[in-house]
């Protein structure tokens, strides 16, 4: 700013003043810009972290099982009605488990292995198949393919999230020599040079050398655990498959970065998973169950349907209560009520009510609706009423602002042609204020949709496995489900929680989009 004073600058003092003013202008612009950059940055970080977490929950691994629907197992004598079949989870589960035991005969050897193989699929995962068969009894006796989600820990392992491992390709194997008790050794010239180097790197970073790293060598459907290694020869313990497989293709070595005792999945389970994958029986499929299943204690089966329906029912109650009450109260206060002490007092307190912490409304709801009136706990009816109490000050304030913005000349015009005050308000003022009123109401509802705290206090945090059919049924809502899931210990809940958050955000965006649409469509100028 060191320009020579031109025709427009009268003196050095005014030039200095001008320079200061311009600097202040520029600074202010930078402050504003940086505030926006910070806000957008925070939003981007949020979107990326939640989005990337949720992405991994958008799909999951399902295993297919070819089973024969043996009538003796799934529809035994005296329990062959469709209702019995659909409830016979144990029968269907035993079919699936037997299929696994047939595929991996070594799993039948001891109790521990049987349990490990049983973990592959959750008992309740066969329920859809049971229902399908109950609906189509002609399927009994035929051979069908059952698909069930893979255990959540193994699912995470396949996604590369649960267990850290390094994959190293070994060289070609020339000879295999069996040894007693399942042990064997494989040899190939220089086949394990890469693996040895990898092991050195892996061991360097470790603090305790006491625990031996697990190294799994896989070739086709067969996997062995490394016990001893040199550049040309590896001593292995067979976990699954046949020793002969190792000569057919160069094996892949996996250095598992944590000891078996520290993991939720065992070496054998990893071996079987890799085998099933090699057989082509594991597929990665989109996780529609997130929208079609209800809550479950097993992450691979859990879905948000009951919470979504619960949220919709709750919002329905909230809308039916808060919108008419709020809008009528606003119309009365703005257009009809005389201005005096009483209405002033009411106005101040409506504004106060809007600032009351939401959990207080939960306490009120618990005391009033559940304890005093005796409404059912955990029901969308009570949740909706509590959220309506919370929302309606917001609706009143927004509606009054919208009514105030209608120019008085419209009222005067209507009154002058002989419209009564009520006709003036409902024929002219309210229709003109409608976009603003609806905007406020929907934004209030959106806030209620994301509300958790008051619903915890009226018992909507209970585990709900069934989809609520009416506002009187036990139910939960999306934000509370997110809260519950985030409290679960298992690793698999983390991406699921993120996915549920994305679904909730989608609903909120939908409501905000509706606001924009209504504004654009019905906004009128005068």
């Amino acid at each position, binding site marked *: 700013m060191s320009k020579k004073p031109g025709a427009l600058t009268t003196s050095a003092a005014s030039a200095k003043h001008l320079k200061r003013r311009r600097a202040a202008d520029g600074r202010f612009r930078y402050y504003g810009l940086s505030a926006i950059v910070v806000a957008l940055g925070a939003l981007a970080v949020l979107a990326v972290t939640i989005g990337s977490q949720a992405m991994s929950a958008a799909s999951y691994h399902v295993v297919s099982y070819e089973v024969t629907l043996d009538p003796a197992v799934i529809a035994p004598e005296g329990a062959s009605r469709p209702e019995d079949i659909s409830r016979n989870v144990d029968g269907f589960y035993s079919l699936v488990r037997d299929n696994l035991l047939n595929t991996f005969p070594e799993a039948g050897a001891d109790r521990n292995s049987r349990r490990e193989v049983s973990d592959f699929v959750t008992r309740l995962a066969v329920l859809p198949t049971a229902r399908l068969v109950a609906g189509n009894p002609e399927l009994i006796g035929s051979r069908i393919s059952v698909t069930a989600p893979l255990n959540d820990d193994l699912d995470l392992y396949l996604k590369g999230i649960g267990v850290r491992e390094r994959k190293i390709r070994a060289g070609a194997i020339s000879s295999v020599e069996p040894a007693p008790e399942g042990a064997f050794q494989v040899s190939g010239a220089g086949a394990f040079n890469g693996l040895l180097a990898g092991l050195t790197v892996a061991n360097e970073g470790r603090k305790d050398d006491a625990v031996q790293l697990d190294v799994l060598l896989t070739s086709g459907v067969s996997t062995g655990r490394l016990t001893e290694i040199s550049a040309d020869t590896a001593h292995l313990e067979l976990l699954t498959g046949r020793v002969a497989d190792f000569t057919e293709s160069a094996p892949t070595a996996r250095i598992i970065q944590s000891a078996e005792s520290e993991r939720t999945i065992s070496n054998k389970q990893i071996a079987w998973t890799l085998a099933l994958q090699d057989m082509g029986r594991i597929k990665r499929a989109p996780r529609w169950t997130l929208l079609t299943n209800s809550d479950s204690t097993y992450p691979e089966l859990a879905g948000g349907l009951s919470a979504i329906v619960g949220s919709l029912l709750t919002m329905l109650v909230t809308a039916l209560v808060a919108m008419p009450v709020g809008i009528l109260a606003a119309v009365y206060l703005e257009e009809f009520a005389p201005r005096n002490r009483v209405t002033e007092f009411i106005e101040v307190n409506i504004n106060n009510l809007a600032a009351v912490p939401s959990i207080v409304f939960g306490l009120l709801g618990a005391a009033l609706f559940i304890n005093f009136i005796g409404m059912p706990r955990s029901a969308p009816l009570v949740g909706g009423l509590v959220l309506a109490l919370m929302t309606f000050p917001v609706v009143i304030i927004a509606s009054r602002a919208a009514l105030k913005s209608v120019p008085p000349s419209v009222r005067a*015009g209507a009154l*002058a042609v002989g419209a009564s005050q009520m006709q003036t308000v409902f024929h002219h003022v309210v229709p003109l204020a409608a976009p603003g009123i609806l905007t406020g109401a929907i934004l209030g509802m959106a806030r209620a949709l994301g509300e958790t705290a008051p619903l915890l206090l009226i018992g909507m945090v209970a585990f709900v496995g069934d989809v609520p059919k009416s506002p009187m049924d036990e139910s939960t809502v999306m934000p509370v489900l997110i809260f519950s899931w985030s409290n679960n210990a298992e690793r698999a809940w983390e991406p699921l929680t993120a996915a549920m958050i994305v679904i909730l955000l989608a609903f909120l965006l939908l409501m905000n989009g509706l606001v924009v649409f209504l504004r654009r469509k019905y906004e009128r100028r005068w």
Partner: protein
Amino acid sequence: MDTTLGMSTAVDDNLTLPPATDTAAAPRIDCRNIKVFYGETEAIHDVSMAFPDRAVTALIGPSGCGKSTFLRCLNRMNDTIENCRVEGEILMDGENINDADVDPVLLRSRVGMVFQKPNPFPKSIYDNIAYGPRIHGLANGREDLDAIVEKSLRRAGLWDEVKDRLAAPGTGLSGGQQQRLCIARAIAVQPEVILMDEPCSALDPIATARIEELIDELRNRYCIVIVTHSMQQAARVSQRTAFFHLGNLVELGDTSQIFTNPREKRTEDYITGRFG
């Protein structure tokens, strides 16, 4: 103002009111001892005056003299203002319109009003006119309503300009057209009196001339009371003129007498531009 200016072609002769005569008839509205209070402040001090039928009476005076407040007494629009209180008698057909048992809504259907700023409803031109007849049940069916809309627009001299776009929004018209639409809207409920509160102050000279022609047309059928800041306008359109100052009625008389030979000193000072 004896000259009849040209919109007679637009006027439908099939009217509910008898044809006009030039002579001012008996008073349509008779105000006696009107006082208006805003809270404790007395805005109008004991004004008594009568408004002849089929004539234009102009209320003139400097800003804040109470002429608009007085005008709003005549259809009880002051009721809608909080803290506003009107005392005195306003007789229409021998009935005091300030009586508690007079319904202001019915009164306003007999005493129409046009405002300073054109305020058509943000609806179609048709609905703007049809609204009043609809809420008062003046039309039996769609055809009747169509006829009322056409008649009102013709009388307001707007029919030829808007007949092809009755469904277009009234707010899309020009300022002068909007004001004529508001006049048509007032006419549509078949009032006996039309109050105009500075109807041309937001309009350009050409639109103003158009409205003034219209007022001259309308005085053949209605009792018109107009508040105006423009003394030229008062002189052009009115037969009677009342000069208000500081809430008092200073002088009332025939327009020609007020403007050529005022009795009061204050009136003379005002119309010659010495204050105001």
